[in-house]
C-alpha cells in the first residue's frame, strides 16, 4: 500500500513540469535574439538582453551537461527507490 502511494507521489512529480523547461528556456533565448536583431533596441537594453540571453545559454548548457553518458539497467525493486546497475557493454 505504501509502495503504491510512493508510486503515485513520484508520478505526480514527474508529471509536473518544472517551471522552466529546457525547450521553454530555448524559446526564451530565441525570443531575446529576435529582439536583439532589432536595431531599434538601445545599447543599454541590448546589454540587458545579452545578459539575460547568456544566463539562459548557461543554464541550458548546465542542464545538458548534467547528463553523463551511461547505460544502466533498471532492476526490479519492490517499492522504494528505483535501482539501477551499470550495464556491461558486452551485454549491449
Amino acid at each position, binding site marked *: 500500500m505504501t509502495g503504491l502511494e510512493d508510486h503515485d507521489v513520484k508520478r505526480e512529480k514527474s508529471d509536473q513540469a518544472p517551471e522552466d523547461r529546457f*525547450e521553454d528556456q530555448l524559446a526564451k533565448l530565441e525570443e*531575446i535574439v529576435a529582439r536583439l536583431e532589432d536595431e531599434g533596441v538601445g545599447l543599454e537594453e*541590448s546589454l540587458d538582453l545579452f545578459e539575460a540571453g547568456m544566463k539562459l545559454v548557461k543554464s541550458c548548457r548546465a542542464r545538458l551537461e548534467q*547528463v553523463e553518458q551511461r547505460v544502466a539497467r*533498471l532492476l526490479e525493486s519492490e517499492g522504494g527507490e528505483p535501482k539501477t546497475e551499470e550495464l556491461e557493454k558486452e551485454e549491449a
Partner: protein
Amino acid sequence: MSDRTWTVSGLIRAVNEVLEQGFSGVRVEGEVTNLKPSGRGHLYFSLKDEAASLDCVMWASRASRLRFEVEDGLAVMTTGSLTVYPQRGRFQLVVDELEPLGLGALQLAFEQLKRRLDAEGLFAPDRKRPMPGLPSRVGIVTSLSGAALHDMLRVLLRFPNVEVIVAPAAVQGSGAAAEIAGALGRMAGSGLVDVVIVGRGGGSLEDLWAFNEEPVARAIAASPVPVISGVGHEVDFTIADFVADIRAATPTQAAELVVTQLERQVRRLDEGQSALLRDLARHRALAHTRLAGLAGSSGLARLPHRMRLFRARLDRAERLRAVFGRLKERALARLDRATGVLRQLPALVAAGGHRRVVDSRRQQLAQLARARLGRARATLDGHQRALSHLGPRMVLERGYSITTRAGDPRPLRDAGAVGPGVELHTTLARGELRSIVAKRAPRSGGGTERQVAEDQRSLFDDGSGGS
C-alpha cells in the same frame, strides 16, 4: 440387437462409444450463433449453416488459449468430438480448436483489439504527446539479448550527454506481453527517464505478437512520459504502434528520433549563443559609429573656429567701447573748461569797481552770460549729438566697415600688410563678412584705401578732428 432393451444411460454410453470411434477429431465448418460464455470461461454456442444447427461447447481450458474473441456471426472451422451429454441426452460437439475462416486467428485478434481500443479512444491524436524538449534520459524496454538493443545503443551513444536505462523484458514467446507491460510499468514508476522506447527487431507476426496484446497497449497508454514504439520492420504495424505517442518504423529509427531531437536542441542553443554575441558586437559597433558620427559632425568640428570668431568680435567690441569712452571723456573735459570760464565771468566784471555801472552792466552781463551760456550749451549739445554720431556704431551705419585679419582684432590700415589668400573679417553695421584677399590693388588704389584708413583712425583717436 433389435429386441434388446436399453437403459437410458446404457444407450447413451453405447452411442458415445460409437461416436468416439467414428467422430473424434472431426472438422466442422459453420457460423457461430447463440454464443453464451459462462462465468467459468466455457463457451456455449451453436454452429449453423443454411439448413442445420449443432450445439457446441468449448471448455475454458481450451477457450482461454484463443487469441481472438469468438463472436456471433463469425465463420469458423472447428475441430472436436461429437458426444451426447448424458444428463440431457443432447447431442453436441465438444470443440478443441477453433479458427476463424478467411482471416487468420492473429489478424482477427489484431482487428478486434484494435477496434476495441480505438473505440475507447486510446489511439486518439490528442492523446499523443510530442517528443520531450530534452530527451536526454532515455528508457528502453526490450530484450537484453536482441540485436535491437545493440542498434539503439549504437545510435543513442552518438550523443555525449545521454543516459540510457534499460528495463529488460522478453519480447517474444508466452509471457512476453506481461514482461513488457511490467517493464513499462517499472520504467514509468522510476521517474528516471524523459522518454521510453519500447521495441524489438523484425520477426514473424507470431514473433511480434506480444506488441499486439492488450496489456502492452494499456501499459503504453498509462506511461507518464512519452513512449516511442519501434517494433519490427517498416511494414509491421502493431497495436503498440497505434497506442504509442510516436511510432518509429524500427528500433534504430526510434533511437534516431531521440538523438535528432537532442542534436537539434544543442544546435538551437549554439545558434542562440552565437547570435547573442554577434548582436552584442553589432550593437556596440552601432553605438561607436553613432558616437564617432557625432564627434565628427560639422557642428562640433567647427566649434573651436566659431569660438575664435566670437572672441575676435568680442575683442573688437571691447576696443570700440574703450575708444568711445575716451572720446566721451575728452568731450566732457572740454565742457568743464567752458563751464569754468563762464563761472569766472561775473567775478571778473565785478572787479572793475564801478558799482552802478557794474550793476547795470551786471544785468547786461548776466544776460550776456546767460546768452553765452545758452550758446555754449547749444554748442555742447551739438558736440554731444555729434559725438554720439561719431560712435563706431554710427560710423558703421554710415556705410563704413572695419576690416581685420582673421584672428587679429586690430583694424587693418595698410593693404600692404596683407597678401593674397589672407582671410579677412569685415564688420559691417549689420553682420560680418569673411573673405579671402584675391589680389592687392596697385599703389594708386592703395592710396585711397590708406586715406580711408587714416580717416578711420582720426575718427577714433580724436573726436574733435572728425566733427
